[in-house]
């Protein structure tokens, strides 16, 4: 369980002025819940994710995970970034094994688990490729496998499909729901796509433009496992998308 309590973040701008990126955010995410944070660019939604990850300290407020205060990054919270952030000097297999070996898992065992994960993200046969030889979608699959490898209980996904073309994006969304259905990890998912948020999430947190505050939290009461085509025809799905689009428009 993630508890975000009255978190604010101020940055110092180049000119020395203070910029309030997010203001007084309070949010509780239950174990196994898939929560999206949706907002216009510059609303500080990624910053909130980085604070939960322990990569960036909050200016005020606190975050606890499983009752313990967050003081830095840890393997219980696995990040997946829009920029993939793969280690370019490691092969695909080396990237996925990296976290396991860092955790002290033996080479043979790490390799076995890495291979299984690569199969799960449909990348069999690419084990010895280097990241530069892969397309964006494949890179993100490797990054997801790399993070899943060390078994974080929470996934922190920072616009993971934002840099991909529409077709690849849809495929990866489908794959992510499939992976999530297997062990239902807690997921905090940052996006600016309304359809993506509604399709994937149990709850959608809509944020206001800068400074980022929570405008509204929408519960997505659609049955799981979700299938895209059935969902597109579903009235409740359409209603959620339209309602949230309106909320976003109202801020313009």
């Amino acid at each position: 369980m993630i508890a975000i309590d009255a978190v604010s973040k101020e940055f110092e701008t180049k000119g020395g002025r203070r910029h309030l990126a997010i203001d007084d955010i309070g949010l509780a995410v239950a174990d196994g819940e898939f929560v999206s944070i949706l907002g216009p660019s510059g609303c500080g939604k990624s910053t909130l994710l980085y604070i939960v990850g322990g990569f960036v300290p909050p200016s005020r407020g606190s975050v606890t995970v499983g009752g313990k205060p967050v003081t830095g990054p840890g393997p219980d919270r696995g990040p997946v970034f829009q920029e993939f952030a793969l280690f370019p000097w490691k092969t695909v297999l080396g990237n996925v094994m990296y976290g396991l070996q860092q955790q002290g898992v033996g080479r043979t065992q790490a390799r076995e688990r890495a291979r299984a994960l690569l199969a799960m993200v449909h990348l069999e046969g690419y084990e010895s490729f280097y990241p530069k030889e892969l397309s964006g979608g494949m890179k993100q699959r490797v990054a997801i496998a790399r993070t899943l490898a060390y078994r974080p209980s929470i996934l922190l996904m920072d616009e993971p499909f934002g840099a991909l073309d529409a077709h690849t994006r849809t495929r990866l969304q489908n794959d992510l729901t499939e992976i999530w259905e297997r062990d239902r990890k807690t997921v905090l998912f940052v996006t600016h796509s309304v359809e993506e948020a509604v399709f994937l999430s149990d709850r959608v947190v809509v944020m206001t433009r800068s400074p980022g505050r929570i405008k509204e939290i929408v519960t997505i009461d659609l049955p799981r496992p979700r299938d895209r085509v059935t969902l597109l025809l579903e009235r409740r799905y359409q209603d959620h998308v339209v309602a949230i689009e309106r909320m976003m428009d109202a801020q313009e």
Partner: protein
Amino acid sequence: MTRLPGIPGLAPLVAFAGLLAGWEVAARGIGIDGLPPASRALAEVPGILADPESLINIGASLYRMALGFALGVAVAVPVGLMMGRSRHVAAFFNPLLMVIYPVPKAALMPIIMLWLGVGDASKTLVIFLGVSLPVVYHSYQGGRAVEEKMLWSAAAMGMGAPARLLRIVLPAALPEILVGCRTGLVLALITMVTSEMIARQSGVGNILFNSLDMAQYDTVYAMIVIIGVLGLALDAAFERLRAALVGWAEPSQALMVGTT
């Protein structure tokens, strides 16, 4: 531009042949002692390379160059990477480097000779200084450009800050570091020759300037050719090493090296 067809490496061969032919014709046309024809200078090369005395000199030069280069890289890479990752370290070293940067390292040679004498230590120190600056600069740039998210990914795996510097920053910055090392290698050769020119005792610079004093111009030119070929060979060897070490790098990084 159209490329010369057929044999790879033909273009540079043609360029070298042209250079030698131009030299030959100019020397024969002008006909002064200070510019012997290419054929006469080149004829001296086997003699120099067969002479144990010169080989000892060349060996001594290469030894000092290798030592100065290795020490320079060993000090400059950690300093540069730490500058790249910490604003405080950068603020400390930057002014020092700005002061040292425009000073010709050979100009420090007389002072260094006062401290360390005319032997290997002085020359190696000058080579070390010549190598360090480009390597520090490129390591600094490389360290600074390491993607934050890559470090965060490692931190989430439970990797501490010192380990990240060694296992993430160093390999991520390696393509840029090696660009600096390549420049450093050429500067090592240059400072090696100049240091031997100032403190004449042994080495290729010593042979070159002694021959000049004795008006053995064929030998002077032959030595320049030998130093040139040495530089080319070292650079080519380094380029192969670089390609083997950072073949994984994105093309944008590889392009910064320029050639190939």
